[in-house]
Each structure stands twice: as structure tokens, then as C-alpha cells.
């Protein structure tokens, strides 16, 4: 589904990604771990098309299609979803209206009519029930005054509504207590299927107890320095990242 080849990306002439190779197939869960500043969030943002980053070398393909010239909204229309580490507050626009706009803009891009209102309401009801979201929450302004846990749960609600092919969860576990973490992880697990794929970006192994990865990659200084199965995450938890850093030097 996703093929990243020798990806180099910089911001303001500072190279952050220095040759990433990654292949993610449908039905797989990949975890990307690594110390602070290793380039994890940059990789997520570059896949989602953030214009601040310049891709200087290499390519990103989604289902065989090169994404080089695609805007963030076009990538979203093609099925990429990024769950933000710090979701943005939009006062005056309710969660419901925001989702309506997002869904209908995506449909418009595909040449489809707006989703009928009753169908939209049904979808919203189903997905909010699945994630145990109070209906009152949906009429509140997007992320405004939300707690850390509410913001993350709202991200997963959006993920559920948009049903992307590839979901990238950027530090979705940060700032969550154990109960919120469980709700968010359960939501992701319910949405997992043979047709879609998930990339989980995290600093800690904690989230991976709930969202079990098929592959774990360790990012260090803009490169994937080690890949393995889920046991790699446990090893990292035990030994810390210094172990990887030293191994890289050697």
C-alpha cells in the first residue's frame, strides 16, 4: 500500500529525514519508535503532505501512485489520515459540522454527491457509540477546551468517520491516562481490517501493548536503524534507546 523509498526531507535547509525506506502492506500494523528528535513526527507530517517540509530526494507512493505533487487535502482524499499529536482548536465550528465538511469535501473530490443528512447522522451515531463518545461532545466546538484525552479520542473519532486506507497515529498515547489509552487503542483495533493499514508512532512501548504491531522500526537521526517484530519494542523498553545509538555507531 505505502512504499517509501530513500526519502530525504528538510526544513529550512536542515535535513531531518536522511534516507527512509519503508513498505507497509494492507492489513499490517507498523510501529515507528525512536528517541526525541529522531524524525518520527517529521516522517508522519511528510507522508501527510505538510508543505513546510521539502522532500529533497526519494519518493512516497500510495497504491503505486507517487504523492510528490499531492496537497495535504488530496492525500486525505486518497486515503491518508494523520492523527495529530497536538490537535488544533477551532472555536465556533462543532465536531459534527467539521466532520460533515470533511466528509463531503472528500466525496466532492471523488465526484460524489453530499452524503444525505440522515445517513450522516447514522454514521455519526454509530461511530460515536463505538468509541463511547457522549453525544453532547459532538456539538461542542472542535477541540476547544477539550482535555488531552478528549482531543485524542476525537482524533480517533475522525479516523473512524473518514475510514482511511492508511492511518498514521502520531504520539497518540502522549498525555493519556491508562483508561483513555485503552479507549483510544480499542477504537483503533475495531477499525483495523485486511484492507487498511496503521502506522503507530510512539516513544514508549506502552501503547503497543494495546495496538499490537506486526513490525517495529527504530528511527534514529533520520534513518531506520533497526527493524523487527513486536519483541523489538520490549527490548527497547528494557534497554532504552542508548543501546540502539551505540549499535549504530559501531
Amino acid at each position: 500500500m505505502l512504499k517509501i523509498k530513500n526519502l530525504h526531507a528538510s526544513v529550512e535547509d536542515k535535513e531531518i529525514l536522511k534516507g527512509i525506506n519503508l513498505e507497509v502492506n494492507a492489513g499490517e500494523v507498523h510501529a515507528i519508535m525512536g528517541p526525541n528528535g529522531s524524525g518520527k513526527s517529521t516522517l508522519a507530517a511528510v507522508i501527510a503532505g505538510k508543505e513546510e517540509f521539502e522532500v529533497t530526494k526519494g519518493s512516497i507512493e500510495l497504491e503505486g501512485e507517487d504523492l510528490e505533487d499531492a496537497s495535504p487535502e488530496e492525500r486525505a482524499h486518497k486515503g491518508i489520515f494523520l492523527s495529530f499529536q497536538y490537535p488544533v482548536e477551532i472555536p465556533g465550528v462543532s465536531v459534527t459540522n467539521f466532520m460533515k465538511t470533511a466528509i463531503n469535501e472528500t466525496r466532492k473530490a471523488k465526484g460524489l454527491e453530499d452524503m444525505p443528512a440522515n445517513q450522516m447522522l447514522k454514521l455519526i451515531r454509530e461511530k460515536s457509540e463505538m468509541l463511547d463518545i457522549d453525544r453532547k461532545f459532538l456539538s461542542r466546538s472542535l477541540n476547544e477546551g477539550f482535555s488531552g484525552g478528549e482531543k485524542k479520542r476525537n482524533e480517533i473519532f475522525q479516523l473512524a468517520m473518514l475510514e482511511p486506507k492508511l492511518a498514521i497515529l502520531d504520539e497518540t498515547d502522549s498525555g493519556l491516562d491508562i483508561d483513555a489509552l485503552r479507549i483510544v487503542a480499542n477504537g483503533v483495533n475495531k477499525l483495523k481490517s485486511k484492507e487498511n493499514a496503521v502506522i503507530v508512532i510512539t516513544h514508549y512501548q506502552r501503547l503497543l501493548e494495546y495496538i499490537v504491531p506486526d513490525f517495529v522500526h527504530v528511527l534514529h537521526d533520520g534513518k531506520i536503524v533497526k527493524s523487527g517484530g513486536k519483541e523489538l519494542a520490549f527490548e527497547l523498553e528494557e534497554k532504552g534507546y542508548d543501546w540502539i545509538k551505540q549499535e549504530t555507531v559501531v
Partner: protein
Amino acid sequence: MMFENNIDIEHPVHDVRVDAMKNFEMKGFPSKKEEAWKYTSLNSLQKVDFSIFPKEVNALEYKDVKKYFIHEIDTYKIVFIDGIYSSYLSETTHDGVDICLMSSALTKPMYKPVIDVYFNKVASKDESLTTLNTAFSREGAYIYIPKNKMPKKPVEILHFATGNESTLMLQPRNLIIVEENAELQVIERHQSLTSNEVLTNSVTEIFAAKNAIVDYYKVQNNVGSASLIDNTYIDQKDKSVVKVHTFSFGGKLTRNNLNFYQNGEYIDSTMKGVTILGEKQHVDHHTLVHHIEPNCESHQDYKGIYGENSTGVFNGKIIVEKLAQKTNAFQQNNNILISDKATINTKPQLEIFADDVKCSHGCTIGQLDEEALFYLQSRGIPKKEARALLMYAFANNVLQSVRIPELKTRINKLIANKLGVNLGFDL
């Protein structure tokens, strides 16, 4: 500019007008040399030979102008066409409250006691455009709400310019008195119906007695050939609450001189504004809050979004007299420039003579938050719509204090329209 000689010397306020005229002749139009007019030039307007009194009476059909009313709700209406009262489009009342015409209030003996106490009492005697209005104004709204009363519905004051005169200068004059424990809501709008040049120099005096509540909404969405100089003077007594919202989306040149005088204790004065401009539009908000007595509050929150070649000014003056201890005065002016050619000049002016006060002011000028834009785009919302949503979110909190829901809906639609988007839901 020429003024036609059309002065009625028998008029009860003739002496007031003569004094005002003398003052205006001495001072003339304000120039950019004056600090208060540094960023707003009236030069281009002074070159136009405006017709002061329309030569004929023009009529309009309600269906043609319905959209300018908040027609979703029932309102009292005081409507003027080219400065002349239209009884056909208006709905006035004398049922417990007076919602009627300035011209009759100034001439009928029964109103004389009120006129003697209030007319031209809070309006400036030496600000030149105010004196120009005092000298030449013939018509406007007169609203008197007696003690403990509240009109059944909001009042709309609408001024239409038909364009039947190639150029027109209007001088509306409103007098609004809200007595003790009384309440009033007013929506004011000036609307040109063609692209002929119109200059409106409006003066409104508002007196809010003890415990009175006044909500005043100014909808400024005029065509690109219309200019407005709005001079509003508000006198507040103990525990009164007056809120003025100014929505500036249109017009060629708009100058809002909004002056609050707190003549009592525990007064609350609120000024809020949303300004969204494009093309070569210019809006200048000059506010003044004069804290004269102790324990009062003032709140100012102005948001501006400036595109293309538009220019904006915010000048917020707060005076806290020595006696006015325990004053809370807050002022906020935030601006977004969405074009390299747009400019905003923002200036707080605080003169504080009391020592136990809380005063804060803040102004910001910025661009749209790129991270927020990316967030919306990553959900599939195209850049243009995403920008509009962010601008709406930026201006939104100013709308929260609008107490007429249908008006709020209308303002939201005007904002969506001004931002050029259809978001698939009503803002």
C-alpha cells in the same frame, strides 16, 4: 463641498444648530495632521460635490429591500430613504414606549422636556463632523423607553440610498433614551442600492439610566461606493450595561467614533467588533471609554481580517480619572493580514490617573496559523475552505455575545459570504 441654504430659523433647536454651524465653519473637515485622523483621509470625499438634501422623495418596495432587514423576526422599523422617513416601510410605536422619528420629537411640544434634557448633551460640541451633523441633520430615530419598560421586539434603523441622486450626503441623527431598569435592542444598517457615491455622517446619542440594558448592533456591509462616518456617544449611569457590536464587512471608507462616558458606579461598557475587508476598503475604529467614577468595567474586543489592498485602524483610548478607583478596563485587538498589501495600524492609548485599577490591553497582527491550516487540510478540507474556517474561528468569540439568534445567523452568513466559501453548513 457646498451646503445649500435651507435652514429653518423657527426650529426649536435652531440655536443649537447655529452654534454647531459656527463651530464647523471654524474647524472644517478633520485633516490627517490631526492625531485622531492620522490614518484616515477624507480628502477624496471632500472632492465630491455631495447633494445635501434630496430633490425628490423616492419610494422603495418592501420585497426589493426585504433582505436587508432581519426579516426572520418581528421588529420595530424606522426606515429612511435618501434621508427621508418612509412610513410605508416603517413600523413605529407609542404603546408604552416611543419608537418614532427625530423630526417629530424635535418639533412636537410634548417631547420638549425630554429634548431639552438630552438632545446634543452627550454629543461633542467641538468635534467637527459631529457639529456638522448637529447643524444639518433633519431626521433620524427617536427612541424613549420609560422606566421598567422593554419594547416587545428589537428596533431596526435602516437607511437606504436609492442612487437617484448621483451623489448624496446623509446626516442622520438618533436620540435614544433608556430609563431606569429599562431595556432595548437596536440593529442599525446603512445600505446603498446602487454604486452612486454616498457619504453618511451619522450621530447617535444614547443615554442609559440606572440599571438600563442596551444592546446596539451596527451592520456595516455597504457597497464599495458608500462611506460612513459614525459618531456614537453613550452616557451611562449606575449599574447600566451597554454593549455595542460593530460588524464591518463593506463600504469604501468607514470611520467609527464610539465614545462611552461612565457617569456612575458599577457600569459595564462593552465594545466588540468583527472587521473583514478586501479590495481597497478602509475601516477605522476609534473607541473612547471615559472611566469617571469608581467600580466600573469596560471590555473591548475587536477582531480584524484584512485582505487585498484593504487598510484598517484601531485606536482604543481609555481614560481612568483619579476618582475612578477599582476600574477594570480590558482591551483586545487582534488582526490577521491575509495579503501582503493590506495594512493595519493599531494603537492602545491609556491615560490612567487612579492607582487601584486593572487595565490590560493587547494587540496582535499575524497571519493564519500554518499548523492549523495543515490540520484542516489533512482532513480533506481544501485550502480555501480551511482558511475560511480558521478565519471564522478567529472572529467567532465576538459573536457569542450577540443576543438576537437570527441576527447572529445573518452575521455568520455575511461572514461566510465575505470569505467566499460554502462550507456545507451554516456557520
